[in-house]
């Protein structure tokens, strides 16, 4: 290294790094005043709060999946309608079944509305089961928006007797009767079914626990990458029982029902505003079978109805556990979160944008196709769902852990 070279390096570094630091200094964000404890001084938040700012929306899932689609569908509308038109960036941070991205959020987040997290039932499950890898805590967050969903379980006609296959359905009541008889037949004949699952700590817990409560002998084969792969295995005839979440069910499984390649058994139901389990209206008039060349369309009864009809009570620890985990997995399927300390004014700006978004004709045109029929809730509705989805009683939690331990030899 000659003297000339040293001089050249020093000079250039001085210029380049100097310019860099200078530009950084000009770009620094001085509109957000944080107190020593991290909270914001509310006085500085007005309608222009988000102007020129960027909101990073963490999605702890891969590009192209359900969680990603949800965020990417909403992002442009947020950008358009939230006062100040903040730029919205979707950050996909997949890993460990969404634990990695949610952990990262927990580490980095400030109560300024500039970093938000979109979780899913898959994110709620390991949290509720006290997975040691989880470092996010829902008690520290509150919801900006909540989006529930549902799902339907269906079986292959191959495993149902001829008589029952042709059991004609014209009302929901008859559909319920049919589902119950199919389940009885399967249990009485001791039929073992296989189910393509993503893994024992995923949202599939709810499905597999439901099978167990109904007395079905279902063996889960793990390692499926997504519900789409599970449905493909169903179409190939490798598995005889499958479930899909609402949008995917309506889009891809109902055609199977319409060509007599699937029989719906039950839905996971929906929650009304008081948190009661009701029939899921998304499946109103969805196909349930083909009889005499005509497609019968009625709603699909929910799990509770089937369970009750099989002679069980909708109470006791087994039912409570089902209800708790169903609410967490489906009722509060998608939650958009920010820290609890985030000023109400910031939340109000979000809500202002979301309300406007819902009136946007472009949104109305594509929303149900892209995301399904469920409303994206804010305010009281979102808070109720959030509470149901993230607070499960200790007894239910322990019961579920024991069940997993017993069934899958898993130590959680």
């Amino acid at each position: 290294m000659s003297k000339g070279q040293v001089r050249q390096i020093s000079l250039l570094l001085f210029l380049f790094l100097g310019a860099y630091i200078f530009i950084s200094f000009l770009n620094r964000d001085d509109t957000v005043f944080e107190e020593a404890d991290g909270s914001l001084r509310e006085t500085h938040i007005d309608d222009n709060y988000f102007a020129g700012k960027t909101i990073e929306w963490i999605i702890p899932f891969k590009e192209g999946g359900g969680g990603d689609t949800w965020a990417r569908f909403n992002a442009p509308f947020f950008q358009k309608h939230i006062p100040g038109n903040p730029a919205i960036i979707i950050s996909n941070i997949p890993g460990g079944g969404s634990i990695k991205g949610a952990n990262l959020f927990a580490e980095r987040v400030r109560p300024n509305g500039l970093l938000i997290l979109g979780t899913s039932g898959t994110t709620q499950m390991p949290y509720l089961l006290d997975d040691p890898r989880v470092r996010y805590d829902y008690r520290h967050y509150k919801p900006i928006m909540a989006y529930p969903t549902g799902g339907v379980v269906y079986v292959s006609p191959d495993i149902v007797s001829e008589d029952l296959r042709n059991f004609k359905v014209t009302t929901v009541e008859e559909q319920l009767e049919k589902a119950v008889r199919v389940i009885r037949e399967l249990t009485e004949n001791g039929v073992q079914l296989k189910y393509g699952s993503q893994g024992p700590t995923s949202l599939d817990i709810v499905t597999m626990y439901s099978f167990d409560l109904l007395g079905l002998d279902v063996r889960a084969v793990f390692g499926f990458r997504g519900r789409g792969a599970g449905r493909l295995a169903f179409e190939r005839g490798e598995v005889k029982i499958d479930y899909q979440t609402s949008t995917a069910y309506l889009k891809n499984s109902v055609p199977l029902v319409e060509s007599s390649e699937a029989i719906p058994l039950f839905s996971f139901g929906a929650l009304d505003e008081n948190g009661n389990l009701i029939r899921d209206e998304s499946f109103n008039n969805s196909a349930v079978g083909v009889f005499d060349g005509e497609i019968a369309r009625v709603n699909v009864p929910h799990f509770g109805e089937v369970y009750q009809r099989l002679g069980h009570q909708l109470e006791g620890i087994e039912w409570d556990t089902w209800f708790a985990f169903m609410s967490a997995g489906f009722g509060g399927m998608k939650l958009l979160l920010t820290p609890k300390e985030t000023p109400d004014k910031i939340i109000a700006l979000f809500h202002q944008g979301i309300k406007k978004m819902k009136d946007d004709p472009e949104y109305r045109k594509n929303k149900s196709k892209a995301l399904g029929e469920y409303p994206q809730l804010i305010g009281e509705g979102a808070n109720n769902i959030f509470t149901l989805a993230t607070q499960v009683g200790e007894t239910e939690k322990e019961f579920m852990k024991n069940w997993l331990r017993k069934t899958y030899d898993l130590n959680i």
Partner: protein
Amino acid sequence: MLDLVLQALATLFDPENFTYLVLGVLLGLIIGVFPGLGGIAGLSLLLPFLYGMDEVSALATLIGLVAVIPTSATFTSVLMGIPGSSSSQATVLDGFPLAKQGQASRALAAAFTSSLFGGLFGAVILTFFVQIARPVILIFGSAELCMLAIFGLSMVGSLSGKSVVKGILACGFGLLVGSIGAAPATGEFRMTFGVDYLYDGIPLVIIALSIFAFPEISELFRKESAIAEGTDLGKRGWLLGIKDFYKNKWVALRCAGIGTIVGAIPGMGGSVVDWIAYAHVVQTSKDKSRFGKGDIRGVIAPESANNAKEGGALMPTLIFGIPGSGSMAVFLGGMVLIGIEAGPSMVTKDIELTYTIIWSLAIANVLGAGLSLGLAHPISKLTKIKFSYLAPFMIMVISFAAFQATKSMSDLWLLLIFGLIGIFMKRFGWSRPAFLIGFVLATQAESYLNMAVQFYGWDMFKRPGVLIIGALTLVSIYYSRRGAVDENAELMQKISAKEINRTPQFIFALVVITFMLFAFGDSIRQSFLGGIFPLTISIISLPLALWLLYLLWGQKKVHAAIFDAEQSVDEGVFKAPWFEPVLWIAGLYVLSVIIGFIPAIMVFFVCFFTLKAKSGLIKTAALTAGGVGLLLLFGHFLNLQFPQGFIHFPI
């Protein structure tokens, strides 16, 4: 059907729709040139514009983008030895040696013609089969997919170099590295050292960059010459490449067929298709002596396959709504957003949309390949630039590409670690393709094996599909040993004369064995289903590894397994010790941790140009500003955040 097909074409040639298609193609080409950026990055750029477009325009833009990414990814694969996308890894094997011989324009021309052909072939197959493909796709159950993974592994035979022991060991090493992370069957974490980063295993892009690009960059760094050493073919090369394609049109046709089929099978993924095509052309060629050293067929085969793959992959994407490849997952997401639902209706009531998609695919391929062909000659001049000017840019590009994997600093550290492994694998004659194939297929082989055993048990061997693929595997193994691809053959002949110091390669073999022992120890702690796969692999590999150690230590005679490129290269070829490039790159990363990636790359550029390229003040300043400017520009448009240091600059 024909009128529907033509009607779709007419809609597409509507000026507005066509403009959007061209825009999609241009964007795809620009994004595809940068390694590590793929359909996902393109989609996030496009998305805000998709709203409000009509269906046809939006579809045309999306397809235009996705279709040409494998085309332009060829540039870096051939010119710099940096795999441009997961489906142009095999192109590096022969494309880069051709570039080193001054035949870059020939290789590129042949590659783009093959891409064009493959893309059109895929579109034609899609047109005729999309309506009847469903039952065929459904034949491929977990048993068949498991057998296909084994078939893929059998390709290692053709690509493992002279020493079979080392080839199998490299593959076993790859399989074990590939099984780091959550076990497909149980979700247990294997060999993760408690690090969050490893939950989902090591990203493929990092392995591909470190195993292929890193060693090449460090070698060029040490030679201090330009990439192209031979005499330049000039404009002639361009025509020569097109003629090469014409001469090998049957190779291209077979490989395009392979590409379409593999693409159409959901669950196989796009990253093996180029290897299968490459191994196929090696196995079916009479004269194999040039493979791995610059055989044009080694470029034509993977390039016709990887563009054909997109046509094939569209079948499951459209019919089942299940993506056939990574870029298709993104395409599917884009479709959802514009309100088009993929599924059975795409071949019934929405068939005209499907034909629009197919035509967009065909036209995008023509446009993409045409533009790339036009650029092939001028861009190939990059290989004439003195490497000390190119090196910092290439190091920036691979770091940037690796950083796209999970956007954390760990991406860069892993790139460095596996880059070192890549350097030693190249030096000691361990087959890098074998390692990569093992790595890519590890998850597939394991999860489909697990499913197949649970679904079918021994009955899986009664399935005709399994038997046919099994027979193909045996044929492939039979042909594979008759003349294997070996990049080191020439050095090998020189070496026989003199005795070399075997300690370095003995130490490297020990490191690999230690990892295998660790994998063994880790897998016996897992549950049966969670540990059986890595356990079996390590049990098969370890005796072979001991045998290799014995050969390296005790064998007196010359043996194919004993090889050290470093000691058989003529003196004076390398002007710097092997660790110098590694230290430069490590220095860049250490500095990034302290002050952040962008300022660190400034320091790196300034120091490198001044000290290594010995360039003057103005030139250094201009090159540094250019490099950093490019990085910031991309970062801005793609909304990327670069690694921050302890010292935080709020930019």
